[in-house]
């Protein structure tokens, strides 16, 4: 295994590659130091879902998630990547167990950060109970790992977004990186509309979906620490920077997070739309935010966003 690489050539190779368009395997390749990835429970082990066959549905040899270890800028890391095109990246029994196992390994090793490349609609409906249990186990494992000093960075920019149990798991991370395409929420647009009616949320209004759950909004209200353009090197740079800066988990962290969320609710509790919130935090022309190029948005967000809290 080699960790020596030519950064120039690797950056050039990956420069224009869209994170959104890339497969889970390709994202790992582009994120980590070239050739450093070592997969645990690879597809050749055929640890497939025990449930899909019952429903006469096709399986995938890695059950839609790749876990393993590698190097990021010379630093050893654990990494997990969900494949959003296989069943919407949804969590099933095996899929979830692979992530739980990785987080428990990180908890035991203590010093090695974990990168979770989210791309998921939530729990797989065909294995709902097993999937829900998996989410509970993942969240517990994430908190145990963080309590042991492990930094967990979530990267969100895939086609399935990060919903349901994925959104809950993202909430348990030390910090999140998000692109405009990377939507983050618990209930998805269709779920809200089905349960609360079209007056509450029109899932076909794509502009509404993006400005409510999209990366720009999540970053502006403090849900995601870093906003990046939709490129692999941008995600890589952000992950490396966050590993340097994120704080550990303590009771004080949780108290700060509670205070941050309380304050957020006080200030924005009556807002009817993301546009109201953006205006409230001091963006002069809130309507221009959705169409704004990434670089321009990052400059704007840095001006209006107060990030000097020690929450999460």
């Amino acid at each position, binding site marked *: 295994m080699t960790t020596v690489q030519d950064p120039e050539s690797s950056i050039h190779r990956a420069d224009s590659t869209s994170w959104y368009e890339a497969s889970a395997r390709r994202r790992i390749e582009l994120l980590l130091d070239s050739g450093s990835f070592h997969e645990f429970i690879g597809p*050749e082990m055929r640890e497939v879902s025990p449930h899909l066959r019952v429903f006469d549905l096709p399986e995938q040899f890695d059950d839609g998630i790749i876990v393993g270890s590698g190097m990021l800028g010379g630093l050893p890391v654990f990494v997990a990547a969900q494949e959003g095109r296989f069943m919407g990246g949804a969590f099933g029994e095996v899929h979830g167990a692979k992530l739980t196992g990785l987080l428990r390994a990180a908890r035991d090793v203590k010093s090695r950060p974990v990168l979770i490349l989210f791309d998921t609609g939530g729990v797989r409906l065909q294995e709902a109970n097993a999937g829900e249990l998996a989410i509970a186990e993942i969240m517990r494992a994430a908190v145990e790992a963080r309590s042991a000093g492990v930094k967990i960075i979530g990267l969100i920019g895939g086609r399935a977004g990060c919903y349901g149990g994925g959104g809950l798991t993202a909430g348990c991370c030390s910090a999140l990186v998000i692109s405009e395409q990377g939507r983050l929420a618990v209930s998805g647009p269709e779920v809200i509309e089905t349960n609360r009616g079209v007056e509450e949320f029109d899932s076909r209004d794509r502009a509404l979906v993006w400005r409510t759950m999209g990366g720009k909004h999540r970053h502006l209200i403090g849900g995601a620490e870093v906003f990046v353009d939709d490129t692999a090197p941008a995600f890589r740079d952000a992950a490396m920077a966050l590993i340097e800066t994120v704080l550990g988990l303590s009771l004080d962290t949780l108290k700060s997070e509670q205070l941050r969320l309380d304050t957020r609710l006080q200030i924005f509790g009556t807002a009817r739309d993301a546009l109201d919130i953006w205006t409230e935090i001091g963006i002069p022309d809130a309507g221009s935010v959705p169409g704004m190029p990434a670089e321009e948005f990052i400059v704007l967000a840095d001006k209006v966003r107060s990030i000097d809290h020690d929450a999460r």
Partner: protein
Amino acid sequence: MEDITFHHYTQRPAAGNKHVAIVGVVASGNLEVLAERVLSNDQFKIEIRTAAEGFESVWSAVVADFVERYPTGGLKFSINDGGARPDTVMLRMAQAVRVMEEG
């Protein structure tokens, strides 16, 4: 779901010495191919699980054509298919052979 298996004798061993490779994804109109170098050099085996039932003769023709066009000796392919068209199947299998050559 339908399981289909084909076994071919082949004159040409697959190049490279990579032991295992995976290409593609199981989605509608797409498939994954798991390639493993586990057979003797004059053998090629392919195991298919497909969501589109009743197309065994099409698979047979595509695989026979593939074995004729690419060196596959020593390889075993395991395919999970989400109902891919024959041209997509052919491209994915060719991609698998190429990735096995890289190692």
